[in-house]
């Protein structure tokens, strides 16, 4: 089975986000970047599928020069090769531009299964997975929390919906977007980290991939982030004193009469 895993490098969920002077991007200095947490579930699902069926995992990342770190992490986990997409022509792509670039590589790799996270925790668009599926004319299932293969071309999947789950039968090739609960991502072993250094990591240009640069990057973007702002500060609250019974009596009074939320 040929498996493509699409990953993004994002600031860690524990990172404080500082805004850059341009008012529309973040200042990456001193910020810890990690593989997008939901992509880790996708990566683990790929490793399990390869363990079952054999084959090859190609991990594909779109981003700045730093994306190599995230790709090396995935190689250390057991991906066989990596593709870093960091041609300047790709910068400023919107979701559809990103999906055009990624789907070109998935097609070149003739992947049978495409896995990615349900969303990236930076821009939270949750768009790329279904868009890649559409551009490749693959079916997709988003927010997958359980995955079972009946054979190499059919899978039973469970996706999360409000207050429950939906079950689907999906025929490969397909795009699946992973959520928490799908599996327990493994950690890279020292041996894997050593081996990762010798695995292929290529950085093809737009021209190498035959991508029409008028369809990607800033100029083609139909949506743009125009401002980023910190959320408004919350006004200082009050600490309620007393023994537990007094605290509770005061709190209920405040909730009822002051905050009017009961």
């Amino acid at each position: 089975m040929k498996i493509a895993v699409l990953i993004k490098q994002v600031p860690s969920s524990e990172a404080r986000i500082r805004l850059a002077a341009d008012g529309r991007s973040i200042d990456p200095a001193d910020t810890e970047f990690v593989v997008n947490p939901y992509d880790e579930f996708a990566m683990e699902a790929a490793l399990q599928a390869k363990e079952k069926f054999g084959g090859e995992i190609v991990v594909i990342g779109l981003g700045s020069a730093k994306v190599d770190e995230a790709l090396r992490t995935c190689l250390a986990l057991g991906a066989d090769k990596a593709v870093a997409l960091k041609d300047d022509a790709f910068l400023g792509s919107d979701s559809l531009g990103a999906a055009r670039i990624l789907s070109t590589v998935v097609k070149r790799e003739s992947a049978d299964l495409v896995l990615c996270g349900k969303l990236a925790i930076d821009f939270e668009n949750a768009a790329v997975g279904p868009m890649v599926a559409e551009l490749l004319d693959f079916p997709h299932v988003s927010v997958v929390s359980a995955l079972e293969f009946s054979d190499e071309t059919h899978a039973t999947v469970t996706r999360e919906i409000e207050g429950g789950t939906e079950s689907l039968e999906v025929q490969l090739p397909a795009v699946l977007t992973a959520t928490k609960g799908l599996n327990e991502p493994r950690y890279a072993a020292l041996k894997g980290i050593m081996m990762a250094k010798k695995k292929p990591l290529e950085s093809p240009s737009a021209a190498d991939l035959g991508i029409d640069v008028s369809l990607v990057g800033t100029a083609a973007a139909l949506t743009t982030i125009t401002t980023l702002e910190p959320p408004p500060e919350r006004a200082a609250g009050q600490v309620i004193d007393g023994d537990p019974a007094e605290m509770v009596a005061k709190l209920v009074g405040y909730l009822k009469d002051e905050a009017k939320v009961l």
Partner: protein
Amino acid sequence: MAKTILVFGEQRGGALKKSVLELVGLGSDLADGGTVNVVLPGASIGAAAEQLSSAGAAVHTTEDASLEYAAPEAYCAQIEAAIEAVSPDVVLFSATAMGRDLAPRIAARMGAGFVSECLALESAGDGFAAKKSMYGGKVNATVTSKPGAKLVATIKPGAHAPAGAGSGTVAPLALKSPAALRAKVTGLSTVESDRPDLQEAGTIVSGGRGLKAAENFQLVEDLAKVLGAALGASRAIVDAGWVPHHYQVGQTGTTVSPKLYIAIGISGAIQHLAGMRTSGCIVAINKDSEAPIFKVADFGLVGDAFEIVPLLKEELAKVV
């Protein structure tokens, strides 16, 4: 300039999702005199169609047994049929499991701009401007679309008031079969719960590590029951396996904004705070007076949750 709007009419089992009426309301604002259309595919949609036309929408219904479940390929084919019929400038979906699933696929099919999880969307010149949260609530963003470009957007439930009464129309739209149906929905299973959904709840009671053990989450459940509240949790206790992951509030869980948020034994990791800081009123109960949660709380109770929460439950039971 008048714009043509298409709203995706989300329903399950014939029950219209409440937020679709909010999309019709938002659509009327954006339409500037243009038409607000709703595409409504399903297996049993008569009542939903009535509800939408009474809100002033031009409803395009396709009723067919094959549309009982929202298989993406089948539903996208039907939405595409509506797009061909009305040529919308904007297509609106609710930011729900179904809307999030279908909207990006439709945007790619149309070659349209895409923005998701909008808290607000308005016309800006010949384009649109959307407000949304990014980085798990740590940043507020404005996203604008290119002038003249078509736009597909998902809108957070509750972001707009529902449409008022109006007189619309209902007309059938022919069934358009997808070229292939390779992802088939075989069934739904709902988790038995009398608690509301985390994202839609007006009140949330949330628990964390300070509860000390999985069985003590019962304290949170008991209080939530009195308040008719949804259940939330910190990442720490989700990762520890005390509660299911769909309880998780924060950047790698659900970002919430209820009227009242009660945090019990939650110290307040940055990703948790970002995910709930827009709540109307925040109450924190924690024994550590230095816990970061107190920096965002309107009312802080420093003390033992095992003493305070049962008393709070009793007092609240008297007033709600």
